[in-house]
């Protein structure tokens, strides 16, 4: 028998009144994976996050955390979960140390064990010298680190994070990502939602969530390969007209994204000169490159994320 999945989402649907937020989402995360749910805001990421963290009851379908159903046995699921919300779940009027102690108490930790783990957790996220600071006075990056320290305290099997680097400056962002990689190295399964391509690209596997459905999933490299060839981006004064002309001339689809045209083409280096030759004066600029995860996203959703 195969090992139990760290996270199993099966035919999950959720409606807010008439509005469909999740429309039959299924995917599995293996133990020890670093997994990203990539999608635009409003794509259903947060709904999925809230259901998995036991805060919201889905309309139908199942979510299991290491085999424990979050609806049937929320208490059991909570024992296995660590949850990092987008807005810090810390008390601004308590110190960093008090926040950690309180969190430990909620998970039944006391005395020596709590003291040791608190010390280790603070060291791991480099917050030891901030232990007596009021949490409310910390910067966003330090608050996020306090959150991560809380997570280390309870040693969850599955760590869920909602947009873990949103609102952080670049160095704090790098900090959080490095910490997540360390978590994974220690055997923790990490699942995060994100709308940032580079963040998702650093994960083992990615599921692209679009309009309440998983439109693609796999390792970032596999998703990128699906693009097929190179990506040529053209800017033009009249992109609409140019798109029609390109389709007529080369038989290639050109997707319009704002004032730009995006073309997926094998052997792009041969296509670019031909394209420029064909429409003199009509093209402002051409860029050519190997596809990235962003191109894969556009490929699968037909939309830009930004």
């Amino acid at each position, binding site marked *: 028998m195969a090992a139990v999945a760290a996270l199993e989402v099966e035919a999950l649907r959720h409606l*807010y009144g008439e509005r469909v937020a999740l429309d039959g989402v299924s995917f599995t995360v293996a133990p020890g994976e670093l997994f990203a749910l990539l999608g635009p805001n409003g794509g259903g990421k947060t709904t999925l996050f809230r259901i998995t963290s036991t805060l919201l*009851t889905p309309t139908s379908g199942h979510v299991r955390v290491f085999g424990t159903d979050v609806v049937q046995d929320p208490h059991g699921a909570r024992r296995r979960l660590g949850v990092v919300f987008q807005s810090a779940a810390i008390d601004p009027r308590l110190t960093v140390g008090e926040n950690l102690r309180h969190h430990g108490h909620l998970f*039944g930790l006391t005395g020596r064990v709590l003291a040791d783990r608190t010390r280790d957790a603070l060291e791991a996220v480099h917050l030891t010298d901030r232990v007596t600071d009021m949490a409310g006075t910390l910067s966003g990056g330090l608050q996020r680190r306090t959150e991560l320290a809380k997570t280390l305290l309870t040693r969850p099997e599955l760590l869920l994070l909602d947009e873990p680097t949103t609102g952080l400056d670049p160095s704090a962002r790098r900090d959080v990502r490095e910490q997540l990689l360390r978590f994974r190295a220690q055997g923790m399964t990490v699942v995060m939602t994100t709308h940032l391509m580079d963040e998702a690209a650093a994960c083992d596997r990615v599921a692209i969530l679009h309009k309440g459905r998983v439109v693609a999933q796999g390792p970032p490299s596999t998703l990128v390969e699906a693009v097929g060839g190179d990506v040529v981006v053209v800017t033009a004064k009249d992109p609409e007209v140019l798109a029609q002309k390109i389709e007529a001339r080369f038989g290639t689809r050109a997707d319009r994204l704002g004032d730009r045209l995006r073309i997926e083409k094998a052997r792009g280096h041969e296509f670019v000169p031909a394209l420029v030759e064909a429409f003199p004066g009509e093209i402002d600029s051409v860029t050519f490159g190997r596809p990235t995860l962003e191109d894969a996203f556009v490929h699968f959703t037909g939309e830009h994320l930004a």
Partner: protein
Amino acid sequence: MMLAVWSLTVRDILRFVRQRSRIVGALGSPILFWFVIGSGLGRSFQGSTPGGGYLEYFFPGTLALIILFTAIFAEISVIEDRQEGFLQGVLVAPVPRMAIVLGKVLGGASLAFVQACLFLLAAPLAHVPLTVASFASTAAVLAVLSVGLTGLGFLIAWSLDSTQGFHAIMNLFLVPMWLLSGALFPAAGAAPWIRVLMRVNPLTYGVEALRLALYGHAGLAAPLALTAAFAAIMLGAGAAIVRRPLKG
């Protein structure tokens, strides 16, 4: 479970102590009420009060008001916890839902209880006689009433998402509840419809129990039992409302 309750309770007490203005507000305004209303109404008041003057009549009502203010304001923290994001962290912790209710209610209730007891110790200054026995029995009533009113505050705060809404409920519902509890005037001289309202008001029995305990009169058991029942119902309803899953 007890660890979680303890931790939540201590947290609320710490938060309270760190906000000096709350201490002044919760204790100061009832004392001001007591002194101004008591002194102002005193001469025109002809009720049959056990202690004699109106300041004495009004004393148990002021105790109830201190409890009400402290308890209710303490539970505003439920709304703040939700807005600050702290509450969701508690909700995803493997803690029995009853522990969350008890933790939040006992935190507010202890604050209310301690403040009311401080005011109670000042009773002799108001010519309200205080013995060890009457202090003990009054404190017991205060403890039960604190849990009941804080539980009510928790229920209201849990269902609201803004502190503004909470203040509206406070003025529309909680202050009238206190006015019609026998705190200000006895039911005997009131209009019949007021008397009906006073009879169905759970706080009436709390104020009655306080009055009986404070002045050492007989018949404490019945109003105290009703007050305890009120507290139990509030806690039960609190657990039910927290357990109710969000449907979004």
